[in-house]
């Protein structure tokens, strides 16, 4: 009994510090989540799933202070024709946001959606709950119970432009919990952009239901603020012949843990998840991916690249689970780090668990320095050492950046990564 008390104390402290938004269609899901959270407890350092990333600052009662970055860099996705939805420290900003009406899509805010027959009832907390086995993800459960806002997006057609969730960070002590639900009807398509540091500490969950023949494209840029912390989860389930593509660029941030839980439950579907991160100094970045193949002839692809220097740490935990009967599965996973000095580290745990006998699954993980031969070749042609190193670093990241389907956004991401490398040249 004493042990249980030790385990639940920080959890109870956290629960006591938060207030659950009252009533409405989500009340049952929130109450259920609270009960589940009490049963599982918040993550601790001894949890296997948190072996490489200390959860302490994500589970302590209030957010550690994080300075707000002042930058004259052009905001992300500025040139893109998009529908903007702005949250400042987790609070919706109607003045900065666009009108939420767009053909082929309905958008509501979680905090404002009060209909008792809401469609999101079948999604809110549902995919999150499914994603709790075989590994518990208490931060997501905490989010389901206590999320203060978020967006509920129902995609019925093919909207003419992407939706951009913009997360501004304005207060040094802000602690934001947002929860989004996105439901794509059969054949529907949408691109979701996310950008910005969000808050001093950000807990975000996104549940995405992709119906048969639908396609979801997600491109995210986690902001440059050095001291921010974030724990995010994406839970998605795919119908047959559907597609899910997600790309994340992370630049700076003291602690980022991005979990992505994908369930391929319809035949002939594809899921691609990719990420690049660049970190200098006090930087810890963790990509944790769990892909379940539970249907025939599905393809999954994980491509993660990390550039680390001055003691930065990168973590990758990626798993492909192929269930019995998920024949003709094609699973690919690569995680690589480029260590620009001897102080940085990359910790990788690639896993495959396969119960079907007619599958192709491959995984690879590498950690290395800049290729000296390539560097000399470039220098011998007149390219100065620093510029040559940056060119080779961008080349290293290219395989992941190439996962973005839009050429303009691909170029923009590359340019921003190049600018970061330029700023952080040794």
């Amino acid at each position, binding site marked *: 009994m004493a042990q249980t008390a030790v385990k639940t104390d920080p959890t109870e402290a956290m629960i006591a510090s938060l207030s659950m938004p009252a009533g409405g269609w989500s009340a049952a899901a929130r109450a259920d989540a609270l009960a589940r959270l009490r049963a599982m407890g918040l993550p601790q350092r001894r949890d296997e799933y948190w072996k490489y990333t200390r959860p302490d600052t994500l589970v302590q009662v209030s957010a550690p202070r994080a300075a707000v970055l002042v930058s004259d860099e052009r905001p992300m996705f500025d040139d893109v024709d998009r529908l903007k939805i702005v949250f400042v420290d987790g609070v919706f900003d109607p003045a900065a946001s666009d009108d939420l009406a767009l053909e082929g899509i309905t958008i509501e805010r979680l905090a404002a959606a009060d209909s008792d027959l809401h469609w999101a009832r079948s999604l809110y907390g549902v995919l999150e709950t499914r994603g709790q086995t075989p590994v518990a993800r208490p931060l997501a459960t905490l989010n389901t119970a206590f999320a203060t806002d978020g967006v509920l997006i129902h995609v019925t057609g093919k909207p003419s432009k992407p939706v951009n969730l913009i997360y501004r960070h304005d207060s040094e002590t802000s602690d934001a919990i947002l929860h989004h639900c996105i439901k794509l009807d059969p054949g529907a398509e949408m691109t979701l952009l996310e950008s910005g540091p969000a808050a001093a500490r950000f807990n975000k969950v996104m549940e995405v239901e992709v119906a048969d023949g639908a396609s979801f494209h997600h491109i995210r840029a986690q902001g440059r603020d050095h001291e921010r912390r974030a724990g995010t989860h994406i839970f998605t389930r795919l119908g047959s012949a559907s597609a899910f593509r997600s790309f994340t660029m992370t630049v700076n941030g003291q602690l980022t843990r991005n979990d992505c839980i994908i369930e391929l439950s319809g035949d002939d579907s594809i899921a691609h998840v990719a990420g690049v991160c660049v970190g200098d100094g006090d930087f810890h970045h963790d990509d944790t991916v769990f892909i379940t193949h539970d249907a025939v002839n599905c393809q999954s692809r994980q491509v993660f690249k990390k550039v680390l220097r001055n003691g930065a740490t990168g973590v990758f935990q990626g798993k492909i689970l192929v269930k019995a009967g998920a024949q003709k599965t094609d699973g690919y996973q690569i995680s690589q780090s480029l260590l620009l000095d001897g102080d940085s580290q990359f910790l990788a745990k690639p896993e495959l668990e396969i119960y079907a006998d007619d599958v192709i699954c491959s995984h690879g993980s590498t950690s290395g320095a800049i290729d000296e031969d390539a560097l000399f070749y*470039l220098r*011998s042609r*007149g390219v100065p*050492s620093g510029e*040559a190193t940056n060119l080779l670093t961008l080349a290293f990241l*290219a395989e992941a950046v190439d996962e973005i389907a839009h050429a303009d956004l691909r170029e923009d991401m590359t340019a921003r990564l190049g600018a970061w490398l330029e700023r952080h040249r040794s």
Partner: protein
Amino acid sequence: MLSIKNLQVKLDDEDKQILKGVDLEIEAGTVHAIMGPNGSGKSTLSYVLSGKDGYEVTGGTALLEGVDVLDMEPEERAAAGLFLAFQYPVEIPGVGNMTFLRTAVNAQRKARGEEEMSAAEFLKEVRAKAKELKIDAEMLKRPVNVGFSGGEKKRNEILQMAMLAPKMCILDETDSGLDVDAMKLVADGVNALRSQGRSFLVITHYQRLLDHIVPDMVHIMANGRIVKSGGPELALEVENNGYADILAEVV
């Protein structure tokens, strides 16, 4: 153009002397060839001149137009007009050939205080030069040397040479791995670049490359030194009799 005096070089991490006092004078507008058996120090000479890590200069000088290049960074040597055509050109996945070439051209111009080449101007020039070397547009778009055949890699080296317009070109076994036709194409590319203000140092094992790129002088290198110098006929002598006779003669 290039004046090498008593150049002595050892490996950085082992106590092994590779070059034991090389002397070489290359006048502007001339082509010199260095031949020699394996392990004689030919490639080391080319690497040391271009600034590759792993070698320690223990004595001597190498002046390019009066300035010692041995103290310079590799990129400074390139901007000063030195160019090494690699025996094994390096593959660089993820870096487009055009990006690479343009970055190199403009980096050198910047280092020399010249104006950078515009995208349009660069494109026009690179296309014209690529055509002469029978390099198709597709090859220019691919990552640097990735998936290139041996011949394509060597032609790509010559294309870089043509775009960068160096004063002193060192060709390190440019003929290795080439068939007769490819060698002819590369040699034609080099010959087209021969001019009054440009010198070449051609390192090769075989005389046949020198049928196409006719040198003014031929040097035989052995055991870290130039042991014999002469006209083009010296290369023929090697081809007919091998190195053994020459080495026996000088020892």
